[in-house]
């Protein structure tokens, strides 16, 4: 249909024209004025306390204590059960968050501005590995780190970024792809490139050498530091693609630990959801698949723009996460994702695949036609709150999201 072809061409144009720049770190309440007391943004499609998985509940309790809304974790849970908190998806407020993805007014958020369209998107600062709130961790160590991020690190990073005039991300990601990152499970190169770019400005604007040292060490010690930046970038790139009548391009993929949800440009802000699947992958010592929580997080926004599982060919080491796949087969994932996308990103290319561009613009028609579900690289959370990450792996988006979306999309263009 001409209508769909034109709409998809426009969607692709907008997606590829995106010019994301990391410009600032500001309190979430400033970034999202609607974000009031007792309001908690979470990963994935809408969900209330009663249907939340364990790690999400653990994170809710932790953040309520950190925000000073509850005296302790037990009090926080009692309040949550009693309906004291208002839950909304990050995606409804221009934000994204990894795993549990909680965003509340007091947290610092990184701001990515899409300079081609003028829109902004937000994501909290990555806490590092181990026991962290995004995996449901909520002990004293977790809460102390959150306070440090809010009071020291966030403001310092914001000052540095403002001093630099922002950190352009498109070229940085292009370099990261040539250095073995796919921006979801592997952000080693981009985190390093970011640190290299930030260090002088951080030094100039730091409150003192001790603060500077801790800030630099924090970034340097976290191979996944860039993930949250990549996610805000993904959100900043996809938001202008939303709401193009007749476009079959996916604008968001996200999971709340209970459901997987997608949004499609031509069907506006409707979520098409299905029960989330269990990731398949490798576990840290002492943990097995029996410990795993179902898949979770807004991080699949990076797959939505052609990174993560879609860019597996750039990161052969990550291919091992599927278990059976040899690193030499990494390119197969990227090629397979190429069957469900409309284009190759000419600026984000993979050297080992003869500079093939990452597959971009997921078309729900092609997903349903081929039966090939988007492959998402993901971290695996323990099913109990407070334990944290227990592994990493791969999860497929449930096909039911796409078949539902296709029926609604067909209806939106007058086809039944």
């Amino acid at each position: 249909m001409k209508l769909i072809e034109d709409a998809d061409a426009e969607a692709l144009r907008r997606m590829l024209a995106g010019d994301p720049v990391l410009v600032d770190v500001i309190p979430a309440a400033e970034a999202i004025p609607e974000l009031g007391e007792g309001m908690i943004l979470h990963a994935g499609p809408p969900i209330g306390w009663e249907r939340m998985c364990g790690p999400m509940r653990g994170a809710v309790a932790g953040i309520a204590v950190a925000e000073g809304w509850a005296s302790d974790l037990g009090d926080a849970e009692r309040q949550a059960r009693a309906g004291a908190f208002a839950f909304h998806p990050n995606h409804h407020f221009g934000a994204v968050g990894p795993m549990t993805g909680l965003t509340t007014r007091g947290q610092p958020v990184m701001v990515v501005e899409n300079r081609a369209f003028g829109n902004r998107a937000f994501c909290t600062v990555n806490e590092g590995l181990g026991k962290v709130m995004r995996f449901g961790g909520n002990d004293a160590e977790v809460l102390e780190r959150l306070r440090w991020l809010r009071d020291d690190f966030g403001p310092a990073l914001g000052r540095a970024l403002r001093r630099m005039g922002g950190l352009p991300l498109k070229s940085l990601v292009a370099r990261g792809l040539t250095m073995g990152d796919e921006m979801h499970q592997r952000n080693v190169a981009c985190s390093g490139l970011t640190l290299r770019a930030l260090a002088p400005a951080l030094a100039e604007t730091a409150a003192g050498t001790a603060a500077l040292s801790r800030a630099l060490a924090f970034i340097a010690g976290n191979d996944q530091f860039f993930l949250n930046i990549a996610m805000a970038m993904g959100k900043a790139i996809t938001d202008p693609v939303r709401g193009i009548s007749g476009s079959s391009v996916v604008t968001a993929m996200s999971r709340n630990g209970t459901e997987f949800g997608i949004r499609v440009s031509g069907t506006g802000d409707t979520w098409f959801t299905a029960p989330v699947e269990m990731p398949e992958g490798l576990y840290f010592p002492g943990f097995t698949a029996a410990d795993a929580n179902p898949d979770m997080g807004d991080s699949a926004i990076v797959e939505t723009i052609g990174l993560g599982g879609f860019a597996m060919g750039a990161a052969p080491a990550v291919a091992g996460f599927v278990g059976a796949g040899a690193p030499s087969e990494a390119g197969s994932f990227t090629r397979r994702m190429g069957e469900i996308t409309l284009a190759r990103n000419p600026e984000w290319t993979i050297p080992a695949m003869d500079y093939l561009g990452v597959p971009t613009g997921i078309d729900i028609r092609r997903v349903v036609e081929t039966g090939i579900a988007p492959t998402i690289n993901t971290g695996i959370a323990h099913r109990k709150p407070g334990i944290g990450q227990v592994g990493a792996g791969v999860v497929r988006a449930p096909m039911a999201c796409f078949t539902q979306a296709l029926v609604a999309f067909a209806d939106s263009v007058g086809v039944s």
Partner: protein
Amino acid sequence: MSAVVLNEVRKGFYLDSVALMRLSRSIAEMAEVEEAALMMGTPANRQIMAEAGLLVEAGCTAGGGDLVIGIRAATAAVAEAALAEALAQLDRPAIRGGAVSAWRPRTLRSALTEMPDASLVLISVPGDFAAAEARKAIRRGLDAMIFSDNVSLADEAALKREAQALGRLVMGPDCGTAIIGGVPLAFANAVPRGAIGIVGASGTGMQEVSCLIARGGGGISHAIGVGGRDLKPEIGGISTLMAIDALDADPATRRIILISKPPQAEVAAVVLARLGRSAKPATVCFIGARPMAMPANATQAFTLKGAARAALGLAPEAPAPIPVGLAVPAGRRRILGLFAGGTLCAEAQVLLLQAGEPVRSNAPVPGAAREGRADGGHLLLDLGDDAFTRGRPHPMLDPSVRDTPLAEALADPQAAVVLLDMVIGYGAHADPAGHLARMLAAEPRSGGPAIIASVTGTEGDPQGLSAQIATLAEAGVTVAPTNADAAGWALRAIGAGTRR
């Protein structure tokens, strides 16, 4: 816990965390190993190992750039063995380059990004889906060969009309044979390239004719299958006409052969008129048709053998001398034919009818009767017919389809001759003669009917023509040089005379 925990630190040894996780899993899966981990010695990782009960004093000295191996096992011996294995795996050189890629495109669209200059799709998916795949192909500028059957006549007509408008050729549905530019597609034989182009609505007919041309010293420019229903009025010969156009325009083709069942008069008229507009000489073999008016540049052939001979510029009839000693049981004159090739079955029927012998078949040519109650008369069966292949492979792929009817024919008290075909070549069963020989060896044959067969194939075929013939001869089968001669010998053996 009385387990033994062992640590070893490799200073300055970096491996990607994913590679390490895979190694960890393989060591942890060793018998009697309780837990194992190989990690870079960052504080966070050492903490994880400590909590997993995998860290002892030795490992605590590791830094972030060092690799820590931690193993917990029931006994020291097991732990030592696991550690040795871990070290061995670490030091093993990079493993397997593997195949170039296990990835295969799922859709035509992505196959075309891999091979933008693809010329043809060969489709053998279930019939319900075949037309849709072919439609995608022609819309993207490819020609299509549809091996699949069970495509509705309406789908075939719509597909071919669209293809015609796009200037693309659809071979099939139910097209088993083509040779394009020397490339055999699906079922075809190793024949030399030459000046004779074939258009055929019949796969085995094209195979027999192309093999006889090859054996007669000629060669094939292209053999274009069109599918068995192309000359039905609903289709109107769209692909046949396009194939004639293509051969007419093809400089390598100097002579054209058309092979089909007899079409309806109006379709025949259109096709013959098209042939008549060509400057190239043509041979028309509407197998089973009566003599018809032909354009000035065309001659009609009545058998496949006749078509091949005409195309080679030879006299139409040249019966092979009947072998000495071919005898049939006294008092019997029933011919039972069991054919893998539908057109070979038709050719045999034509020859029996020409000799004045009434014949029945499940796929009767004009003048033959539809298979009815067994009445002792001649019966020639097309075993490629749906009734025999439902839920089974075609007899060209699986010769055992013929086993049961053959056993029945051999035991038939009136059978004088059992008439068979062997179709070899690319795509066909690896050794149909060998299968038949093994089957015959297990059958009591004394006093039974004579078995006469022919082999459709060439020396260059994977099965080898002479090897198949030798196998048949050893099994007591009388092997005729052509399918037509096999039928002729059967007729002579029962004392019938060929009149033409």
